[in-house]
């Protein structure tokens, strides 16, 4: 996947661009920092004079130049460790596994080391008590005896602490996941608009970290101090830097640590923001090209899920933008191509396919999740009723266990990756058709019954369920010769899974194991919305194209699939409405942020349907859709949703 063209060319170019801008901005920040560094409250009259004098030194410029370069290496770390689609760990075990993963530990060390290097350069900027590990043993007068410099240790420990904690906190909150901005901005404008916010947030974070660090050092600081002093063969001073006895001596130390910590966080945040900005910048994909070397840059070739996530996101982002703002692009989408059998619009078909696939995937995931939760809820209810009434429960539960495949809810469940149009198995078909045949059988004139998707509950309908389930000796399965081999393999898998299930059940008896492997519902729910950006862009793109087709589509290429598009949008709307009824709450900001996306997706889905209903109005009565969808669509036409 790394050999994909954007990874090789565009991504590298964007990363280098971010690197250059990071160096430039950090260089400017360092000028301001240096001014604050040299401020001496006792000599405030000569602050500007001192500042200018020190700036005349070659040493200072060399350190600033190098420091800006070192701080820009954050970009290199981000380039190797970023994600496009957020994914939260669903259990404590997975969280622990991730924490102790070699790659993760390595990045923690890298960030910590980089912070230490930056602080070391900062201490070298102006000769001070933080510059050297050696100092006079007495605080008051020079006695000639050399001791270990605790100020130096304090600075380095704090740098490591800030670097490590900041990385872990950001990693936990999924901050290293690219976030696509609402409005594209140039780098300079972005920095201008967000400079004050970045500095403010960095200062607040640093203050919090400093508070924790000082408390830690006050109680346990002697351990690293003695260790390192022993390692260097130096004697420790007879006074303590952090002590309640000399509060006034602590203030300048706190100021220094706060200043350095803020600078480090500003470097980190500016670098990440620049990296994010450069790599989420809209890429101009081509809609068509006569040159074969451009084949990989064609928009329609980059929309599918086989592409790297970043490429797919950029492609959908571009599609959403151009369909909204460019009439010429829409004209190209609506155009017909000669060749093959008849004239057809391959661009529109590919765009529609990919957009609908994204939407369907989300709908299926939500439906599966809803069903899983409702079945869990049902099980809980059964458990409660079993406790309350033994006799009645035993008969009820035995009935339920024996006939899971006869319940409508089981039939309605669709596999995540299933594609109804390609599957030979009828049980993959739309659930509403089954409802129509079971609950509304009297309605003979229903278009859904008479249409090509007519579903009759024949034995074939149960095939996949039997294949999945326990009735392996069913005559239907035995007659299907092609399935025999699969059934054997399936039985083996079943035995293995049964073994694992027993082990798992045994392990769950230990509370600690149960705690670790128990899946947290809010986190598994949050992962449903990890692909929200692509889904939003898909909804926007397809609805805008459909809206524009009313006046711009001269050949009617869009209207051929209008019923399909409306059905998919309404299905998603239904799934989102149902999901909304499940209560969700979380303590993690990253999880909450993902869960909040349900509102955004619901709004976007409604927007997409309203775009179509507002444009087509009562003409939608002529679109062949099932009665349930028609009823829902009526609500949108009348602005009642």
């Amino acid at each position: 996947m790394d050999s994909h063209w954007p990874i090789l060319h565009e991504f590298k170019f964007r990363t280098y661009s971010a690197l250059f801008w990071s160096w430039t901005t950090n260089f400017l920040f360092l000028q301001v920092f240096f001014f604050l560094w040299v401020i001496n409250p006792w000599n405030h009259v000569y602050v500007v004079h001192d500042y200018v004098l020190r700036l005349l030194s070659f040493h200072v410029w060399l350190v600033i130049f190098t420091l800006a370069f070192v701080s820009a290496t954050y970009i290199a770390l981000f380039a190797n460790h970023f994600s496009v689609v957020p994914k939260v760990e669903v259990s404590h075990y997975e969280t622990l596994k991730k924490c102790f993963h070699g790659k993760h530990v390595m990045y923690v060390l890298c960030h910590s080391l980089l912070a230490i290097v930056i602080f070391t350069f900062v201490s070298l900027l102006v000769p001070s008590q933080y510059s050297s590990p050696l100092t006079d043993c007495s605080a008051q007068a020079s006695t000639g005896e050399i001791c270990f410099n605790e100020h130096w240790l304090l600075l380095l420990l704090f740098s490591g602490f800030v670097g490590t904690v900041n990385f872990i906190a950001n990693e936990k909150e999924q901050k290293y996941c690219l976030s696509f901005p609402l409005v594209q901005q140039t780098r300079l404008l972005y920095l201008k608009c967000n400079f004050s916010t970045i500095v403010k947030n960095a200062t607040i974070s640093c203050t919090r970290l400093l508070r924790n660090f000082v408390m830690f050092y006050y109680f346990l600081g002697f351990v690293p101090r003695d260790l390192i002093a022993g390692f260097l063969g130096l004697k420790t001073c007879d006074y303590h830097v952090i002590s309640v006895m000399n509060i006034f001596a602590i203030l300048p130390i706190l100021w220094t640590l706060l200043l350095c910590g803020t600078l480090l966080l500003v470097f980190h945040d500016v670098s990440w923001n620049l990296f994010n900005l450069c790599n989420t910048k809209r890429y101009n994909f081509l809609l068509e090209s006569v040159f074969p070397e451009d084949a990989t840059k064609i928009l329609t070739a980059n929309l599918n899920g086989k592409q790297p996530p970043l490429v797919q996101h950029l492609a959908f982002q571009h599609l959403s933008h151009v369909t909204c703002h460019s009439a010429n692009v829409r004209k190209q989408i609506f155009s017909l191509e000669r060749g093959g059998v008849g004239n057809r619009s391959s661009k529109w078909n590919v765009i529609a396919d990919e957009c609908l696939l994204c939407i369907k995937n989300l709908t299926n995931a939500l439906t599966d999740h809803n069903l899983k939760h409702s079945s869990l809820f049902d099980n809980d209810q059964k458990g409660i009723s079993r406790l309350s009434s033994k006799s009645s429960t035993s008969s009820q539960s035995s009935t339920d266990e024996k006939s899971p495949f006869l319940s409508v809810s089981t039939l309605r469940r669709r596999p995540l990756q299933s594609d109804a149009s390609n599957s030979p198995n009828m049980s993959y078909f739309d659930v509403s058709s089954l409802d129509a045949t079971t609950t509304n059988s009297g309605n003979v004139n229903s278009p859904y019954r008479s249409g090509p998707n007519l579903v009759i509950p024949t034995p074939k309908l149960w095939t996949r369920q039997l294949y999945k389930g326990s009735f392996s000796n069913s005559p239907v399965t035995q007659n299907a010769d092609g399935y025999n081999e699969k059934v054997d393999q399936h039985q083996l898998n079943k035995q293995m899974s049964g073994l694992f299930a027993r082990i798992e059940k045994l392990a769950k008896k230990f509370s600690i194991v149960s705690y670790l492997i128990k899946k947290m519902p809010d986190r598994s729910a949050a992962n449903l919305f990890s692909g929200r950006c692509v889904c939003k862009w898909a909804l926007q793109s397809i609805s805008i194209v459909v809206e524009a087709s009313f006046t711009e589509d001269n050949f009617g290429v869009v209207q051929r699939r209008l019923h399909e598009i409306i059905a998919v949008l309404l299905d998603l709307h239904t799934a989102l409405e149902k999901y909304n009824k499940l209560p969700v709450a979380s303590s993690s900001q990253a999880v909450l942020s993902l869960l909040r996306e349900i509102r955004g997706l619901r709004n976007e889905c409604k927007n997409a349907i309203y775009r179509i209903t507002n444009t087509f109005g009562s003409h939608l009565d002529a679109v062949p859709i099932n009665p349930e969808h028609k009823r829902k669509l009526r609500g949108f036409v009348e602005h009642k949703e």
Partner: protein
Amino acid sequence: MISESNQTLCELNGELVTDRSFQGEILLEGQVATFPKVHVTSESLRRSAVTCETAQSAFLEHNETFWQRLQSAWYGHGLFGVLTEMCSDEHHQNVPNALRSSCQFLLVSLRWVNGMQFTFFPHLKLSNDQLLQSFSSNSNWLESPIRHLEWHSKANKFAIALKDDTIRVHYCDNETVPVLKHKLQRNITDLKWKPLSASILAVGTQTAILIWNIDPMSMSTRPSTGAVQVLSYSGHSPVTSLSWSPHGFDQLFACSALSSAIVVWDVCQKKHQVIQHVTTSGGVSRLLFSLGGSKVLAATPSSSFRVFETASWSNERWSQLSGRVQAACWNPNGTILLFSVVGDPRVYSLGFGDSHQSDKPVVDGSKNAVVVLDLTPDDEQDSDVKRDYIHSMVWDETGERLAIMFHPDDPRSHVIALYSVSSLPVFTLTFRGNISGDGESAPNFIAFKPNFNQGSCLTVCYSNGHVAYVPMYFKRSDRKTIAKQQLVASPLDRLSFAHSRSMLNSSQSLWSSPHDVSSAVTS
């Protein structure tokens, strides 16, 4: 004083009808007959709450002491609140003049620093009420019972913001009137319905933005506070103008006259992004998107304004105006911007390129504004009187009618000037007449109803709390969506046709629309 019979009822066949006898025959058959009858009296308004509302205030009338108010302001709005309270005119007896001046200086300095402005502007010295009054579309924001009115772009309903800081939602097909109240809903400055949604309403207030979700099917008249979402960004208050993305995305644009930042909100995530700092203008008083959403005007308190192109957010700046932009409106294509400035009776026009037709959209505005209308009163042609003339200007979505409301200082403030607009072959404004009220009250706020089937409908909020509708019946030539009912001529159409032939000498050109509806469908 205007007599009662001069109240304008509608525009028919190009003429304003003031004869009350027409009402029974025509208006009851039209869409306007379904519009809710709204009359907000001063007695029906509850007492405006103090800065920090307590449960006690719901039961007893009580006067807070100066220190209590300071305490409330501190808890509610921090240092800004305390300084504002001390500078308020109500406490000039409690606060020594020197302290008061110091507080005023400190407040102005804080506003100046907070707004990230490089130069000092006089509006920073105004009190909050004066500030909102001067930048509001309402000509008498402080005293008017109805401060703002916002029609939904498609559904037949509107929201009105009242002086008592409540919002009422009126439906055309429903008697239910939801009343929206929230403790942060103070000094409402703007209301905006989300374009592709039937339920979401954004409210700009003194301190924050509130997003109400009002279920159109709910029969509840008091939506709970769970139906509201608060968006707040430090230093970006008061929110003087709001605008949803015209493309229907979940993006809300906001600006403040005290802050140079233009902010866009991701509403569901409650995340904001500053998209521009207009640092040389003292703030951004108003954001006005064109109907297609391709351009947006950013009016400022200074004598300059900017127009942004929304695909790339590039902008162009126009300066050297004689004052700040007071009123502005876009034509439906987003190719013409009409604006007027404070202290100038003329309406200016700026032309723009159609960015939808190019692959790389740019603002492409004409260099100089052209005067298209001069509203100098006849008796002031040679005088050097310097005062405000035009307060508000609205252009209907068909692009065929323009209404202008005058400033209270202007002698014509009791009427609304109505113009018909034609763009082909050249842009012209033709005076149709003055829309008058009942003679006792002055218009404070005007807005056109979007999606009016039979032409345009101007909604006027009067100073006595009355909401009046002035329908203008003409054939629309911009219909994209063709409803079934339009295929059959409505009784109103038949009546107006007959009326035009028999009674009035109307201009026939109004009826000869370039795209006939029935022919468009059959083809």
